[in-house]
């Protein structure tokens, strides 16, 4: 980050963000309004530009008023001094004239440089207009949008046509308004000033004539606003004029409403009637105010800039540093991309600059320009916001489920009614309490704020230290310089184990049913429909998957003298070392949680001779190379913080389906509109998607006897994303409305219907389908290369997820709600992983209901090719005897975070015992409710 870009982030970016949120909110509101009331094409973009123009102009109005007041003061001073200035200029010459003027100005506390003081407010307006311009000129939402007779807002309007000539109307309109404004504004001004302004109006007409109509529309509206402003300031009865304008508009709107009702368009009629009533109400309200019936509340005390400053600094630190640092610290490496490395602390710097820009700089500017009475309101507002923000952050929104590195929740974001109510009451109480304290003991408030700011700084520093330490654990040199790849032998025997994180075993029959092609591509595979995983999260389930029954959670707990991370690493190495020792060419890609690091620490394989290790995730991410992730985090950490400190009833709108009201299409997450409509790409998904898509590229074929062992993890199924049907491919604009309507039956199979309730269900289904189709394509490639038959392939997932889509998997009396989905550990779908196994030369796709666990993978992988396989780490035989020796113990713990759950044994949790058939609820028994369980 350069100094210039830091300054930009501090000054312009906050404003851009505000305008983006305003535009986005307007855009979405108009979309909803259009859907609700009007069945005709609704000019959403154009109307949103109007709202944006109003927002920008209303926001700069206080600055304008201040500038106007200062300029008037300046003009008055100049008029007052004019007589003697003229006299001095006429009487004296040379240096004496300068010195006389200096003295005279000094005696009157005036200097010609004061024009700069008056210009400060005007100068401060410029960032607002730059921000709005920057935002609009990069707004892709305008592409293809029209507004009334304007065909496209991204092209000149070309509205006037005669003969063969086309002229743009909007620039002419803009200039006309500008000229009228000048005529009114410069009344009584010298001719020179008027001429200058006319010349400028003409200059802008020529200069901006060919600009996109969206921008010219925005400027025209700005000019119109400026004209209204000038009228209001010029004419004493402007208040009355505005009041009557409200009345006129109200009556006109009511007239339209009666017309609509008369033509049987009642809904629209009622809507317009409502708007009309509001407008007429405004007329009466303004009249009442004019007569002095309402008097503004006035505080009886002096403003305290110290209190205000501390409050806004606190808010900036809370939203810019503390909350983001707490998120990053929970798993710092999730925020790193080895192929495009940015230290996560930079996200803090960025979010702090944004927060400081919003709270300290711009709120400070408005505070500084306000009169004493308004200053007190600013102070009260900032202080109460501190209270409300802290209450929301500390006591609410704690169980929202998993948060991705792009600050979207894995599960659907919903706020329950009770939560809403409790929050409203508590936040209301906090606001009242803080207001009371402000009124009664402002000095204590200042002291409390100073102490809190110090505490936030300390807590942030602790978080930053934790982040730095975690980042230091990553070997940055391990980033892939050579492309991840592996070799398959044409003549030897190959074994491939691909773990798709959170792949849903439950979905497989539905996926194969929807896409019959899959069965052909997966020819030779056996789908195990009764497979168990040993936990609902990767840290519990992966060791057994890669290491076998020695590494089930219970067995890990039994070895209580060793660290979990060591046992985890050991499990990862079991198969690679075993196969390497047997002379196989071994490749390991993205081994899950290696060394308990989010970005796998490949150095754990340093002592494994003959094992090639790679980071593949994100390697094929394309031209973007993680840039969009960085952009999104730079923007959204602050937005996330704002959402966290906001009352619950605002959070859904602020979260905006993980979009945080962004209008950018260059995003690393999807904007979700419905379960069938979405925009943008989810970078976590694309990082994993392109690895799968590039499996053929990564595969080298060798004509040698030496077989290969490939062990790979892929997160494609862990990154929920709506894809474009019917091909299930990522798309910037997903529209599955027709397909979903036409194919609702795809979720019913053999009388069992998957309940598809929300986005999570659809997106989860989509990514599982995508994974299967990409794997199918790769199998086709292997067939073409002649290595399919001599390759044993195991497609397995570590665990499933809870979505309560089939009733018989509900192990407890849990009822589906959208609240706290992360708590639903009593859903057996969590423990139903994918297990698809193809042995050498197998040709038919079959389904087996044999009781399996994903700890069978090492047995399946070695079966028949390694005689009496032994775990090279422990010397114990590798087999599946344990599966039938006793019931299997599954941990239903929710402590998935290896930064926390990293002792010698797993943290206490709930445990189930399962046997024979996972589909039968009766086979599931709770054996411990909150214990470090060892099977005894």
């Amino acid at each position, binding site marked *: 980050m350069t100094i210039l870009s830091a300054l930009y982030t501090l000054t312009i970016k906050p404003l851009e963000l505000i305008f983006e949120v305003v535009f986005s909110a307007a855009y979405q509101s108009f979309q909803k309004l259009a859907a609700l009331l009007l069945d005709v094409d609704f000019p959403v973009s154009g109307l949103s530009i109007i709202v944006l123009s109003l927002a920008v102009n209303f926001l700069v109005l206080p600055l304008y008023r201040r500038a106007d007041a200062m300029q008037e003061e300046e003009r008055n001073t100049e008029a007052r001094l004019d007589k003697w200035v003229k006299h001095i200029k006429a009487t004296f010459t040379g240096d004496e004239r300068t010195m006389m003027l200096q003295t005279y100005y000094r005696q009157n506390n005036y200097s010609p440089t004061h024009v700069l003081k008056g210009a400060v407010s005007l100068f401060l307006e410029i960032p607002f207009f730059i921000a709005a311009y920057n935002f609009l000129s990069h707004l892709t939402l305008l592409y293809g949008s029209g507004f009334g007779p304007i065909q496209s807002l991204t092209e000149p309007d070309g509205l006037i046509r005669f003969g063969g000539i086309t002229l743009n109307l909007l620039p002419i309109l803009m200039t006309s308004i500008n000229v009228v404004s000048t005529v009114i504004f410069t009344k009584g001004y010298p001719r020179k000033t008027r001429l200058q302004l006319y010349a400028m109006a003409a200059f802008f007409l020529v200069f*901006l004539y060919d600009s996109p109509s969206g921008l010219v529309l925005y400027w025209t509206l700005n*000019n119109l606003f400026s004209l209204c402003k000038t009228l209001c300031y010029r004419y004493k009865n402007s208040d009355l004029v505005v009041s009557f304008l409200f009345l006129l508009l109200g009556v006109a709107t009511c007239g339209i409403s009666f017309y609509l009702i008369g033509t049987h368009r009642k809904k629209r009629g009622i809507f317009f009637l409502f708007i009309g009533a509001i407008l007429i109400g405004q007329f009466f309200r303004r009249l009442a105010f004019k007569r002095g019936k309402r008097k503004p509340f006035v505080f009886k005390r002096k403003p305290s800039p110290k209190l205000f400053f501390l409050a806004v600094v606190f808010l900036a630190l809370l939203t810019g540093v503390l909350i983001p640092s707490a998120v990053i610290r929970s798993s710092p490496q999730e925020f790193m991309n080895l192929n495009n490395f940015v230290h996560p602390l930079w996200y803090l710097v960025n979010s702090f600059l944004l927060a400081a820009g919003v709270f300290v700089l711009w709120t400070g500017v408005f505070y500084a320009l306000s009169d004493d009475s308004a200053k007190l309101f600013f102070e009260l507002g900032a202080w109460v916001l501190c209270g409300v923000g802290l209450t929301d952050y500390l006591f609410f929104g704690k169980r929202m489920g998993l948060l991705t590195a792009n600050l979207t929740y894995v599960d659907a974001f919903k706020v329950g009614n009770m939560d809403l109510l409790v929050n409203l009451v508590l936040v209301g109480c906090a606001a009242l309490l803080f207001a009371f304290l402000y009124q009664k003991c402002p000095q204590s408030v200042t002291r409390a704020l100073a102490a809190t700011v110090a505490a936030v700084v300390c807590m942030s520093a602790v978080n930053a230290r934790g982040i730095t330490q975690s980042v230091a654990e990553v070997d940055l040199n391990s980033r892939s310089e050579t492309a991840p790849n592996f070799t398959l032998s044409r003549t030897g025997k190959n074994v491939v184990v691909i773990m798709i994180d959170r792949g849903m075993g439950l979905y497989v029959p539905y996926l194969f049913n929807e896409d019959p092609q899959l069965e052909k591509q997966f020819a030779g595979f056996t789908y195990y429909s009764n497979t168990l995983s040993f936990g609902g999260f990767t840290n519990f389930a992966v060791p057994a998957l890669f290491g076998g029954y020695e590494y089930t959670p219970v067995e890990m707990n039994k070895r209580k003298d060793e660290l979990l991370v060591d046992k985890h690493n050991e499990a990862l190495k079991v198969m690679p070392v075993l196969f390497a020792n047997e002379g196989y060419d071994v490749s390991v890609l993205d081994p899950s949680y290696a060394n308990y690091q989010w970005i796998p620490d490949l150095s754990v394989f340093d002592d494994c001779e003959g094992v090639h290790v790679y980071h593949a995730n994100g390697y094929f991410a394309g031209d973007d190379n993680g840039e969009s992730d960085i952009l999104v985090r730079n923007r959204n950490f602050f937005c996330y913080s704002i959402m966290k400190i906001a009352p619950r009833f605002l959070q859904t709108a602020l979260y905006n389906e993980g979009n945080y009201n962004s209008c950018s299409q260059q995003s690393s997450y999807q904007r979700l509109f419905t379960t069938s409509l979405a925009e943008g790409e989810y970078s976590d998904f694309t990082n994993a998607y392109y690895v799968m898509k590039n499996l053929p590229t990564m595969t080298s074929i060798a004509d040698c006897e030496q077989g290969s062992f490939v062990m790979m993890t892929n997160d494609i199924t862990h990154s929920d994303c709506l894809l474009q049907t019917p091909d299930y491919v990522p798309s910037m604009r997903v529209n599955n409305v027709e397909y979903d309507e036409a194919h609702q039956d795809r979720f019913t199979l053999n009388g069992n219907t998957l309940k598809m309730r929300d986005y999570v269900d659809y997106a989860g289904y989509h990514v599982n389908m995508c994974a299967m189709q990409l794997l199918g394509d790769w199998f086709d490639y292997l067939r073409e290369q002649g290595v399919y038959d001599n390759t044993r392939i195991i497609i397995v997932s570590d665990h499933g997820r809870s979505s309560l889509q089939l009733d018989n998997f509900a192990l407890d009396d849990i009822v589906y709600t959208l609240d706290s989905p992360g708590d639903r550990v009593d859903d057996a779908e969590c423990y139903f992983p994918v297990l698809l196994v193809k042995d050498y030369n197998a040709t038919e796709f079959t389904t087996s209901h044999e009781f399996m666990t994903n700890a069978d993978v090492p047995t399946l992988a070695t079966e028949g090719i390694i005689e009496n396989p032994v775990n090279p780490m422990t010397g114990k035989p590798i087999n599946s005897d344990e599966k039938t020796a006793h019931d299997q113990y599954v941990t239903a713990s929710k402590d998935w975070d290896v930064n926390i759950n990293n002792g010698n044994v797993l943290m206490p949790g709930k445990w189930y015992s399962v046997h024979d058939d996972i589909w039968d609820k009766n086979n599931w028994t709770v054996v411990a409710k909150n214990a470090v369980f060892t099977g005894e």
Partner: protein
Amino acid sequence: MRLYIDPGTGSMLFAILLGMFSALIWLMKGWIVKLRFFFSGGKKADAAEEKLPLVIYSEGKRYWNVFEPVCRELNARGFDTVYMTSSEDDPALSCGMEHLDARFIGAGNKAFARLNFVSANVLLSTTPGLEVYQWKRSKAVDFYVHMLHGPVEVTGYRMFALDYYDAVMLSGQYQYEDERKLEELRNLPAKELVMAGIPFMDELKHRLENSPAVDNHGQRVVLLAPSWGASAIFSRFGGRILDVLLKTDYHIIVRPHPQSFTSEKELMDKLMQQYPDSERLEWNRDADNFDVLRRSDILVSDFSGVLFDFSLVFDKPVIYADTEFDNSPYDACWLDTPFWTFTALPRIGEQLGKDDLEKLPEMIEECLTEPRYAEGRRQVREETWCYPGEGAKRVADYLIAKCEELRKEEGSEQ
């Protein structure tokens, strides 16, 4: 990215740029003045000296007569004073007063640079324009006192002349009123306005009283003491005025302004050649004008301070040339009240208009014989010369008291 500009912002930028441009020009003018000051000797002077109780600054030796009575009074009381002068040959440097430390500090900007950093409790001066021209108030000086060098109005200085002094020594109520009015108009803090009298006129009067009587052998003596410049008597009337005077019985003494012999040398040479010294006419170039004033019965002069010296001290009539006076550059132009000098002059003598040359002998006669001029001199003296004979004492009293007061304040602060 395309150049950003939109009409609103563009207009704003344009307005701001214009304003900034004007402000910049203004600032540059100020810097140029400072640079000129710097390059003409106004470099910061080393002022690392102990704080002095009282400093008197004299622009030149011609002001020694103004300061001398005060210095003598201070010396008599044993009050140590530093006298800084811009004349290398200032009589103060060799006056031999025990408690007067006279120093030559250079002339012009060099002197101001020194004064701008001088350290003193009180600084007394007759120089107007403090803090207006290059002479700025020193941060190390507590109190600036101005003393007038003529029995005339305070508004006769160029604009803002006394605005940054802390006190002014006055000699008439009208001066007090004018100064207060200026303060009010300019919203300035009230200065200490002290009715002190006019020490140098006291001195002249004292000298006159102690001088022997003049014997002109019954012949009237007319002193023609023109100023110099385009509007001065010789430039306007040339030798004709001498012709007119020589037609009378008076003895004529011509005493041009010393500057005339430099600036109008040709004219002077011509006149001196045309009208050489004779029984009836003498050219006088004495350094001290006391004797010539004492000898004269009437003074014919341009508009200058000597008119009042002659009239009020020697109690004799004057004839003053009709000089066009434009008050625009002066503080007087701020006030509606008439310029005091122009109310006083008709009372002490006659005005010589440009067409009145031939009437000059009659005017002289009238001035010498009409008792209303004696009465006018009395009135004017009363208006503009308070505490006659006490000026030096009063000024010294004030200065010493002020120094002590400030020293005491300093002591209590420490």
